[in-house]
C-alpha cells in the first residue's frame, strides 16, 4: 500500500514542480551566462572559460531533464515525505481488527448479515419486482392447491334423511370440484350444525376427494300447534320443522299453548304416564305457561296442577280404572288441587243423573 502511494506521489511531484518553477530553457541560461560575464569584469580567461563550460553543462543537463520530463533535484528535496508511522486511530483500529473475536464476529456474522440485508433491500425495493414475487408465489400456491390430490369432488352426507340432505345441499352449495385448501371446514361445520334439523355435524375430507358430512338429525318427539301451524319439536324443545297436517305424524303427541315448546320433556313424561288412557288422549295444552291440561277425545280435559302433575294424573287414571270415570259424560276432571278432585259434568248429564237417581229411588221406594 505504502510503496504505491509513494510511487504516485513521485509521479505527481514533477508536474507540480514544473508548474511552480519553470525550468530555465537552454536559451535563457545561455543568455544569462554572458550577461554575468559582462557585469563582473575582473575575471581571468581561465575563470571565464570555466564558467562558460559550467553554464553549457548546466544547460545540457536542464535540457536533458526537460526532455525526459524529470524534475530538477531541487524539486525533489522540496517534497515533504509522509510520516510512515500509523496515526493513533489507525493503530488502534488495526489492533482491533487483529483481535480474533472481533474479526470472526465481523467476518462470519455481521458482514454476511449486512450484505444479505442490503441485497434483499436493494432487490425488493422495487415494487414491480415485489409484485412479481408475490404473483409467482400466488401461482405456486395455486398450483399446489389445485393438485388433484387436494381437490374435493364429491360431497357425501351421512346420517341424514333425504330431505335433510337436500336441505343441506341447497343451503350450502359447493362448486365442485373445490380445493380442500379453500374449504374452511370449521366454519362450514358450525354453519351446518346451526340448522334446526341437526343436532350435530362432523365434517372431514376423506382420501379420494370426498367431503364427508356426518350429521346427527334431531328426532322429533312432539308436535306443537302454534299460531303459525304445526311444528315438530325434539325432546329439548328445539324446533325441527313444520308439517302441514297432523295426520302426517300421528305417532307424536300434540302440544299446544304458549310456552309448551319449552317443556317438551315434561309433556312427554305426562304422555308416558298417560299410557293407560292413550287411546283417549288427544293432546296437551299448556295453560298460562305454568300447567298442563290433558285434552281427551270428546273434548274432556284433565286439568293438572303446576306441581307434581304426574301423581295427579295417576290419581285420575286410578279413578278411571276403578270407576270408568273418563267414559262418563264429564267435561273436565279438575286436579288443580290434588286433595280435592273436582268433576265438571257435561251439560245435560246432571239432569240425566238426577233422573237416573230418581228412578233408582223410585224402584227402591
Amino acid at each position, binding site marked *: 500500500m505504502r510503496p504505491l502511494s509513494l510511487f504516485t506521489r513521485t509521479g505527481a511531484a514533477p508536474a507540480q514542480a514544473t508548474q511552480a518553477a519553470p525550468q530555465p530553457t537552454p536559451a535563457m541560461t545561455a543568455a544569462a551566462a554572458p550577461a554575468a560575464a559582462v557585469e563582473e569584469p575582473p575575471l581571468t580567461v581561465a575563470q571565464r572559460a570555466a564558467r562558460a563550460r559550467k553554464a553549457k553543462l548546466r544547460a545540457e543537463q536542464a535540457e536533458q531533464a526537460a526532455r525526459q520530463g524529470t524534475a530538477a533535484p*531541487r524539486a525533489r528535496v522540496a517534497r515533504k515525505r509522509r510520516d*510512515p*508511522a*500509523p496515526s*493513533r486511530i*489507525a*493503530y488502534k483500529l488495526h489492533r482491533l481488527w*487483529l483481535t480474533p473475536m472481533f474479526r470472526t464476529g465481523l467476518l462470519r456474522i455481521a458482514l454476511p448479515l449486512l450484505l444479505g440485508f442490503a441485497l434483499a433491500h436493494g432487490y425488493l425495493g422495487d415494487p414491480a419486482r415485489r409484485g412479481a414475487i408475490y404473483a409467482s408465489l400466488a401461482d405456486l400456491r395455486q398450483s399446489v392447491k389445485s393438485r388433484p390430490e387436494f381437490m374435493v369432488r364429491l360431497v357425501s352426507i351421512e346420517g341424514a334423511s333425504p330431505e335433510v340432505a337436500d336441505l343441506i345441499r341447497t343451503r350450502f352449495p359447493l362448486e365442485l370440484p373445490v380445493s380442500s385448501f379453500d374449504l374452511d371446514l370449521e366454519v362450514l361445520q358450525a354453519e351446518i350444525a346451526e340448522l334446526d334439523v341437526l343436532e350435530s355435524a362432523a365434517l372431514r375430507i376423506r382420501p379420494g376427494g370426498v367431503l364427508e358430512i356426518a350429521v346427527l338429525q334431531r328426532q322429533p318427539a312432539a308436535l306443537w300447534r302454534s299460531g303459525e301451524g304445526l311444528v315438530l319439536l325434539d325432546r329439548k324443545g328445539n324446533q325441527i320443522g313444520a308439517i302441514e297436517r297432523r295426520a302426517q305424524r300421528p305417532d307424536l303427541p300434540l302440544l299446544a299453548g304458549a310456552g309448551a315448546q319449552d317443556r317438551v320433556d315434561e309433556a312427554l313424561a305426562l304422555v308416558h304416564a298417560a299410557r293407560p288412557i292413550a287411546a283417549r288422549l288427544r293432546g296437551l295444552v299448556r295453560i298460562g305457561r305454568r300447567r298442563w291440561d290433558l285434552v281427551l277425545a270428546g273434548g274432556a280435559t284433565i286439568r293438572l296442577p303446576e306441581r307434581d302433575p304426574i301423581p295427579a294424573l295417576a290419581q285420575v287414571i286410578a279413578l278411571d280404572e276403578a270407576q270408568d270415570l273418563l267414559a262418563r259424560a264429564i267435561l273436565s276432571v279438575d286436579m288443580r288441587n290434588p286433595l280435592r278432585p273436582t268433576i265438571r259434568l257435561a251439560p245435560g248429564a246432571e239432569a240425566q243423573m238426577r233422573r237416573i237417581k230418581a228412578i233408582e229411588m223410585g224402584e227402591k221406594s
Partner: protein
Amino acid sequence: MTDLYQQQRAMRAMRKAALEYGVVAILDVGTSKISCLVLRFDGPTRFRESDGVGTMAGQSGFRVIGAATTRSRGVRFGEIAAMQETERAIRTAVQAAQKMAAIRVDHVIASFSGGAVRSYGLAGQVELGGEAVSEDDIARVLAACEMPDIGEGREVLHAQPVNFALDHRSGLNDPRGQIGNTLSVDMHLMSVESATIRNLLYCIKRCDLELAGIASSAYLSGLSSLVEDEQELGAACIDMGGGTTGISIFMRGHMIHADSVPLGGENVTADISKGLQVPMATAERIKTFYGGVQATGMDDREMIEIGGDTGDWEHDRRTVSRAELIGIMRPRIEEILEEVRARLDAAGFEHLPSQQIVLTGGASQVPGLDGLAPRILGQQVRIGRPLRVQGLPQAATGAAFAASVGLCLFAASPQDEWWDFDIPADSYPARSLRRVMKWLRDNW
C-alpha cells in the same frame, strides 16, 4: 525499593499471563532502529524427549511469527529524547509486526541501551543452623545483601544472584535442599536512570501495550551472542549499537558486570557527515556501502560519489576516495574501542581466566574491524552474531539484531532475579497483616 520490587513482580505476573496467552512481543528500542518481534510460545509439550529435540538454551519453546524493523526516531544515546517521535516509531514497528503475525499483541517485553548503566556486586550472608536450604532461606539471603547507594533518581534494572556459597563450598547455582550452616550469595545489581525507564514505560503505555518485562540490551546481547562455553568460562560482549556501546561480562553463565559507553555507530556517521559535508542519510549510506577501518593501497584509487542535492553542480559531483573515508571512520572506531578497553580495565576484566571478547551489534559489521579490534582489545576477539532462533527472518539475523534475539531468549527463559523470590517475613513492616499472612504461610 519495595516499590520497585512490586513493579518488577507485576511485570513478572504480566509475563506469566502473556505466556499463558501464548503470544508476546519483544521490542528493542535502539538509537538507530526499533525492532519488534512477535513470539508465539508453543509450550513445553510441543517436542518430547523421544523426538530427539531437547530444549537448547531454552529457546525451542517459541517461534518468531512476526518481525518488523523501523528507523528509530527521537532516541539519542539509547534514551528517549522526543516522546512523540519515539511513540510513533514504536507504533510503526508494532503494527508491522502484528500485521505479519496476523495477531494482536498485548504484552511486550522491552529493552533499551541507555540510561547510564552502572553495575554493583553485592554479597549477603545468613546463618542456617544446619538445616536444609529452603526457598525462604534464599529470599532471606538475598534480602541480607547490603543495598549500595545507587544514587538519586536511579532504579534497579537487574538484580541477579550469580553465585551461592554454602559454608566453604562456592559456585553453587541452586543451593536449595542442601544442608549447611552459612549461606552466602553474590548478587549482581544493575541500575539505570529511572527517567529512562519511565519514558519508555510511558511510550509503551501510549501504544496500548502492557509491559511484561524490561531488560538492558547490553545483557541481552551477551545472552544471544556469547556461545554457551564463553558464558561459562568468562567473556565480554561488546554490543556496538547506534548510539551506545554496551559492555557485559559473563562468567559461569551469569552476567557479572555491565557498562555502557555513550558512543556508537551514529557518531561515526556524524563524523562522515561533518567531514564530507553530506547529509546524515547519505553519510549512513556511504558508511554501510564503502566503510572500513583498514586502508590499503587499493583504497586510494577507489573513488566514491558523494552526491548532493544542492543544485550546485560542482558540489553535487564531489567524489572522495575510500582511503579518506577510512581516515574519517577509523579514529572514531578506535576511540570507541579504547573507551571500551578503559571500561573493561576499570572492571578488572584482565583478572578473568578467559579474555574472550565478542563484538556484536550493528557497528561491529564494519569491514576490517576484526583486524583493528585485536590491537586494542587483545588477541581473543571475534565478531559475533546472535544465535539462530526459529522463524526469525533472514533480514533480522545480523549482528544488529543481537539485542532483539537476546530479548527473545530473555522472554522465553528469564534468569531468576531478586524479585522472583518472596520478601522474607521480617522485612515487612511490623504489625502488618501481610506479615502475619506470610508467617502463617511459611510456618504452617
